C-alpha cells in the first residue's frame, strides 16, 4: 500500500518535472533553474527508509529519465541516482535525521549530482564550458529550487517513508 503510494508519488513528480515545471520557471531561466525532484525523493528515501529501497528507486527512475529524455548518453542518471541514494542510506539510515540535517544532506547531494553529471558530459565532450561557469549558470540556481522543494515536502514525505519502514522491517536483509 505504502510502496504503491511512493511509486505513484515518484511517477507524478517525474511527470511534473518535465511537463509542469517548464511553465512555472519564469521565461529566461528555463536553462538555469532545473528541477530534480525525483532525485530529492531518492535521497529522502535513503534518509528515512532503507538503503536498498533508495537504490532501487534511484536506478529505476534514473533509467526512466535517461530513456525518456534520451539525448546523448544513456545510463548516467540511473547510475548516479542509485549510487547516491544507496550511500545516503549507508551513512544515515540508522540515525533519525533532523530537518536541518536532511536539508543540508539534500543540498550537498544535489551539488554532487549536478557536478558529477557535468563531469561525465565533459569527459564525453558533449559540453565544453568550464566548471566554474556551469556552477554559476545552473548548478547553484537549481540547488535553491531543490532545497525549497525539499523543505516544502519534508513533513509528508518523511511520514510516508517512515511508515513504509514500519510496515516491512523484515525485508531489510534482501
Amino acid at each position, binding site marked *: 500500500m505504502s510502496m504503491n503510494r511512493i511509486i505513484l508519488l515518484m511517477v507524478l513528480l517525474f511527470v511534473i518535472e518535465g*511537463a509542469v515545471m517548464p511553465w512555472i520557471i519564469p521565461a529566461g531561466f528555463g536553462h538555469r533553474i532545473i528541477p530534480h525532484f525525483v532525485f530529492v525523493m531518492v535521497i529522502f528515501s535513503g534518509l528515512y527508509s532503507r538503503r536498498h529501497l533508495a537504490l532501487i528507486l534511484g536506478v529505476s527512475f534514473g533509467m526512466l529519465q535517461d530513456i525518456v529524455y534520451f539525448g*546523448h548518453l544513456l545510463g548516467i542518471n540511473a547510475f548516479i541516482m542509485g549510487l547516491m541514494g544507496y550511500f545516503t542510506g549507508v551513512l544515515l539510515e540508522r540515525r533519525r535525521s533532523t530537518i536541518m540535517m536532511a536539508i543540508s544532506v539534500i543540498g550537498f547531494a544535489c551539488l554532487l549530482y549536478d557536478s558529477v*553529471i557535468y563531469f561525465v558530459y565533459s569527459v564525453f565532450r558533449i559540453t565544453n564550458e568550464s566548471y566554474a561557469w*556551469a556552477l554559476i549558470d545552473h548548478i547553484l540556481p537549481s540547488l535553491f529550487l531543490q532545497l525549497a522543494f525539499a523543505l516544502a515536502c519534508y513533513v509528508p514525505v518523511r511520514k510516508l517513508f517512515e511508515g513504509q519502514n514500519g510496515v516491512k522491517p523484515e525485508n531489510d536483509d534482501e
Partner: protein
Amino acid sequence: MRNKRMFMLMIGFIVCIAVIGFSLSDRKELSWPEKFLKDSAAYVQQWFYKPAGYIAGFFEDISNLRTIYEENEQLRLTAAAYSREKINYNFVEKENKRLQEELDFTVAQKAMYNYNYLIAQVVSVSNEANNRTLTINLGSKNGIKPNMAVTTIDGLIGLVSSVTPFTAAVTPITELDEASPTFNLIAVTIMGREDESFGILSSYNKETSRLLMTKIAEKDKMAIQDTVITSGLGGVYPRGLVVGTLESKQLGDFGLTYTASVELAASFDHLTEVFVVQVPELEDAE
C-alpha cells in the same frame, strides 16, 4: 560485507559504462523498450503540459495587455506590407512555374522546395542542464524522421534526433557542437543575399549564448544585424528557416576565413506549438 558492496559497485560501474557505450554507438533506431517507455511517458505528460501551458499563458496574457495596442499597430503595418508583396509574389511564382516548364524540370526538381510544415505540440522538456531535449507529440506514424528541422514562429529551434511511433525527441540547436558525434552541421546564408553569402553553424557557446558561424569567405559582404537563414545547401535541412541575427564578425583561427556570432531568434522557454519541416523525399539516384 564491505567486499561485497565494493564488488557490486564495480559491477554497477561496468554496467553503466557499457550502457553509455551502447548509447554512444551510431544507432539508426531506438530499441523497443525505449520506444515503449517514451511513448507511454509522453502519453501521460501531454495531459499535464498543455493545461499548465494554458494556465501560465493566461497570466502572461494579463501582463501583456498593456503592450497590445502597440503590437496591433505593428501588425497592421505588416499586414499592409504583406498584401502588397503577395501580389508581387503571385506574379513571380507564375513566371517561375512557366520557366520551369520551359526548362523541362523533373518532377523531383519541381517539388524540391515544397516543404510540408507539420504542427506538433511539445509534451515535455528534459530536466538536465546539458541535455535539453524536447519531446513532441508526432512520431514515425506521422512521417517524422530523424534530422528533420523543427522551428517555431520565431525561428529554428532544433533537429529531430530520434523518433518513436508516437513521439519524437528534438535536440535543441543550443546543443550544436562540431565535436559531438550526433550532430550535423547546418549551412546558412543571409536573408536578401542568399546566393552571395555562405556560412556553417558549427557550435553554440553556452557561456555567451551565441551560435558560432564559421567558414565565411573573406569577401563576403554580410553585415551586423543581418538575418541569418538556413540555405538548404546539402539537401538535408530545408532552406529559408530563420536562425537569428548576426551580431559580430571576426577573423577566424587561421586568418583565411571569417567567423561570426549569431544571436538566436527563437526562445526555448514556454514552448507550445512547434513546426516540423518535412522535406520532400529526394530520389536516391545521385
